[in-house]
């Protein structure tokens, strides 16, 4: 088997994060792939919740949208959008949230609204979607994002989502977690072959580094072959 690329490592590490979780709220893209992978290799009981209203979806393939038919057909329950936010997300019934973002700052605040000035934007991004309330209500918030100075910025152009509940940021280079006292994101883990300097260079602020930085245990053959099989379906 060819060695894992950095995106595959990121997905495998994100999947491991859900080993003990009961339920996870996920958007499309890498977070969704990671959660489905976790159900395949670590935690078959994991409840996948998509904001389209599908609770306990069991997709066999990676969905393109959060509302693909397979999610509704395999779900334990399908609820309306007001019910999803008011009865399920708001009261904190979903344990973990996996979120992405175009920009993130040192306190894990997220921007998915606009690059540049709000009234005269350089790039108009999709907007908030469910992220603000999801981040505020889920007990644990894991951000899955590509590590570059464009994404990891000193100052957000717009605060779409407040990062107070964030517990980890998983990137293609390593893992950041908030410091217990300062709550500032701190490098605690690097993927195999990635140097601390490399992570610092890819971060738009002076990144804090933990006293001991762990090295990611490489994907096992089982994890990697399951991931590749899932992606090829």
């Amino acid at each position, binding site marked *: 088997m060819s060695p894992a690329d950095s995106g595959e490592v990121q997905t495998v590490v994100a999947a491991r994060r859900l080993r003990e979780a009961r339920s996870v709220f996920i958007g*499309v*893209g890498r977070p969704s792939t990671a959660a489905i992978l976790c159900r395949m290799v670590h935690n078959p009981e994991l409840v996948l919740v998509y*904001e*389209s*209203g*599908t609770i306990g979806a069991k997709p066999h393939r990676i*969905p*393109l*949208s*959060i*509302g*693909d*038919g397979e*999610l*509704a*057909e395999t779900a334990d329950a*399908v*609820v*309306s*959008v*007001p019910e*999803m*936010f*008011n009865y399920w*997300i*708001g009261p904190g019934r979903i344990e973990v949230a996996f979120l992405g973002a175009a920009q993130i700052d040192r306190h894990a605040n997220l921007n998915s*609204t606009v690059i540049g000035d*709000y009234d005269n*934007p*350089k*790039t*108009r*991004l*999709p*907007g*908030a*979607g*469910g*992220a*603000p*309330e999801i981040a*505020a*209500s889920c007990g644990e918030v894991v951000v899955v994002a590509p590590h570059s100075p464009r994404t990891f910025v000193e100052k957000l152009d*717009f*605060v*779409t*989502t*407040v990062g*107070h509940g964030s517990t980890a940021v998983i990137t293609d280079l390593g893992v950041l977690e908030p410091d217990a006292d300062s709550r500032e994101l701190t490098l605690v883990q690097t993927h195999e072959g990635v140097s601390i300097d490399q992570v610092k260079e890819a971060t738009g602020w002076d990144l804090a580094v933990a006293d001991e930085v762990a090295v990611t245990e490489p994907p096992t053959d089982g994890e990697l072959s399951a991931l590749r099989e899932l992606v090829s379906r």
Partner: protein
Amino acid sequence: MAEIVPLRDAVAGLVHDGDSVALEGFTHLIPFAAGHEILRRGRRDLELIRMTPDLLYDQMIGMGAARRLVFSYGGNPGVGSLHRFRDAIENGWPHPIEIEEHSHAGMANRYTAGAADLPFAVMRGYAGTDLVEHTRVRPIACPFTGEELMAVPALRPDVAIVHAQEADHDGNVQLWGIPGVQKEAVLAASRSLVTVERVVDELEPRPGGVVMPGWVIDAVSEAPGGSQPSYSLGITRRDNDFYREWDAISRDRDRFGAWMDEHVMNGVRA
């Protein structure tokens, strides 16, 4: 009681220039056929309301039908940008549009308040975000505990348009699968149109079925395949390939215009 009328007549009678119009359907059951009919009727200056503008509002914005957009997530799900939406906001093409944006929870609660004929809904949310200064929300204290909450104003569209799988001959409607905010949108609006895949003699109860009685709907129109390229669970499948192809079609203004002329406008100039 809902009248069962051809789509063309329903849109002509219910949607007027300058109206606020909500075409709802959360990824599932998006009323494309009705939106396209609005474009062929040449309706203008619309306030378009939709949680997820999706390809349908990308098309309507690109054709210049929108004066204002109220929304919570303007992306092509799993693919990337909505290029006509971006071009309108970033470059004012084909003309500038006003926007009002919320979170999904905010929009869902706004529809719920509208359906309940209440002036606003109360929720936890928005606090600490930059959305507060760019949209219509106000902090409000709980009269019982003093907890600071957020109030969002009710949505009361002039017209709501949704798509469902089935109606009977009396215009009673049933949809199933992901129910989104369609019931709330219909009940919040002054007028409503439901397009359906088929009209049947009798509605058969379905697991998770949402039934709307014909007497809360103004018009029902048969539009088989009318939610494509989204889908109607059990009848059509989401055309994920088209959602991917739309990225290239919509990126270029001329290619977009040519595609719309060929596939939507049928020779009608908006």
